[in-house]
């Protein structure tokens, strides 16, 4: 299916209102979709210090706010992440703590609060098996936490090699390799040798490796885990790749290399980028627009190149802070979060 040949558009399915301040992030519950026989669930977090859980009714197909997680964080909740089992939701807050909430269906209970960062926690990410959690902060450090029995979490590592505020952490989709990106303009890769090894920084992707020239805001991997996209205040998206087969088979770390830079498409900071299961890259930027990119599949060019599939102007009334594709195949639903206080659900559809 060549997406470029179809005449596609991004259709707004619904606008989710409720937050009373900007919405920073959204996260799809990984185990819920109509295909699973379970209603899709989305979490959103905000400058109003709360997290809202939204659910789509299988009957009416409309989204409603099922519950509000409040009175726990005392400042902005900056990002949230579901554990792979969908049973837990981690919330990262400017109050310096990370909340762990247990999903009891219609209710959520905060079962643990992770403390340790010296100031605002910016991002939280679970590894593929759910055994590790990573957090990062303006205190320049990345922490790795291990889940123990009885809702206890142990700090397994404090990684302090970034020289500035760390904006996001993201575990690789299949391997226990951690990636972080920062106000110091770099992306760092953290890897531990063998089973008992300590995590250490094995690679830094900076300007000298064709990296970004300003704050890197987000990282997203493709489904196969052999490519990633990063977005920056430098108004570019960069695509990076590695030899994933070699990495998975061997004991040695295989470095990531720059494959392609998408420049000239954005004229404000790009806050978010997300790679869908069917290989569409969505970006959310400070010009209120959402853009979709696809691999041009042009064999004449050295390495991959990407084309702009579509640009949705005024997707929101203000900056788009986060874009996230739903996990379920075939759905092609996209959720977005904005400074305008809204969450929106979109669908990619062929123009009539």
């Amino acid at each position, binding site marked *: 299916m060549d997406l470029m040949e179809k005449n596609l558009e991004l259709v707004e399915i619904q606008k989710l209102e409720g937050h009373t301040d*900007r919405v920073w992030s959204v996260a799809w519950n990984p185990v819920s979709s109509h295909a699973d026989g379970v209603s899709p669930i989305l979490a959103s977090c905000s*400058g109003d210090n709360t997290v809202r859980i939204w659910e789509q009714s299988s009957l009416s197909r409309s989204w409603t706010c099922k519950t509000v997680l409040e009175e726990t964080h005392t*400042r*902005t909740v*900056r990002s949230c992440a579901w554990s792979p089992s969908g049973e837990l939701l981690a919330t990262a807050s*400017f109050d310096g703590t990370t909340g762990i909430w247990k999903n009891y269906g219609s209710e959520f209970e905060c079962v643990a609060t992770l403390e340790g960062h010296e*100031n*605002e926690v*910016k991002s939280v990410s679970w590894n593929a098996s759910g055994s590790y959690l990573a957090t990062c902060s*303006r205190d320049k450090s990345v922490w790795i936490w291990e889940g123990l029995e009885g809702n206890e979490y142990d700090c397994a590592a404090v990684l302090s090699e970034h020289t500035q*505020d760390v*904006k996001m952490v993201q575990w690789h989709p299949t391997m226990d390799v951690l990636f972080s990106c920062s*106000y110091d303009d770099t992306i760092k890769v953290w890897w531990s040798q063998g089973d008992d090894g300590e995590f250490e920084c094995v690679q830094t992707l900076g300007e000298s490796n064709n990296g970004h020239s*300003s*704050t890197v805001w987000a990282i997203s991997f493709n489904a196969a885990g052999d490519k990633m996209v990063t977005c920056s*205040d430098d108004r570019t998206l960069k695509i990076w790749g590695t030899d994933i087969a070699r990495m998975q088979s061997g004991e040695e770390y295989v470095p990531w290399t720059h494959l392609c830079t998408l420049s000239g498409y954005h004229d*404000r900071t790009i806050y978010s980028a997300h790679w869908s299961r069917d290989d569409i890259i969505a970006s959310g930027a*400070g*010009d*209120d627009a959402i853009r979709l990119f696809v691999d041009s599949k042009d064999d004449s060019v050295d390495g991959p190149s990407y084309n702009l599939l579509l640009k949705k102007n005024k997707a929101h*009334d*203000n*900056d788009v802070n986060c874009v996230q594709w739903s996990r379920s195949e075939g759905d092609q639903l996209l959720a977005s979060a904005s*400074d*305008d206080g809204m969450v929106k659900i979109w669908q990619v559809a062929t123009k009539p």
Partner: protein
Amino acid sequence: MTLGLINANPVVQAKKERLVRTQEDQYRDDGVDPLDIYEYVRDIRDPEHPYTLEQLSVLSEESVTVDDKLDRILIKFTPTVQHCSMATIIGLCLRAKLNERLPLHYKVDILVSPGSHADEDSVNKQLNDKERVAAAMENPNLRQLVDECIFSDEI
């Protein structure tokens, strides 16, 4: 180490006479007039001294430029000294004041005037990282200082 103010002897301008602006002076019906924006910010009080940013020549009418097509506002301010550690506070005050007054969709970029600060790039980067700005404004001490500076003309 000297205790006390960063700049103990600022140069203070007399308060500029306010021109009464008539309907004809309106720049455009639907756009934003840079002079309107200047009105919002000229009386912000300096964090260290009991004078306005205008009186200290931190701001002037030339500080504000507007791109009507893109709905973007650029403010350049001149800290009183090269090593002014209040530069980021002044930037926060400017944003806080404008947040109240401007329609949502306007984009505001705040920079120090070129050559006016020793850490120009570093200050500019901080002032325009909205996540850093948001977190700073949640700090009660900073928020209080900013509020005192931006509401002083209403006391």
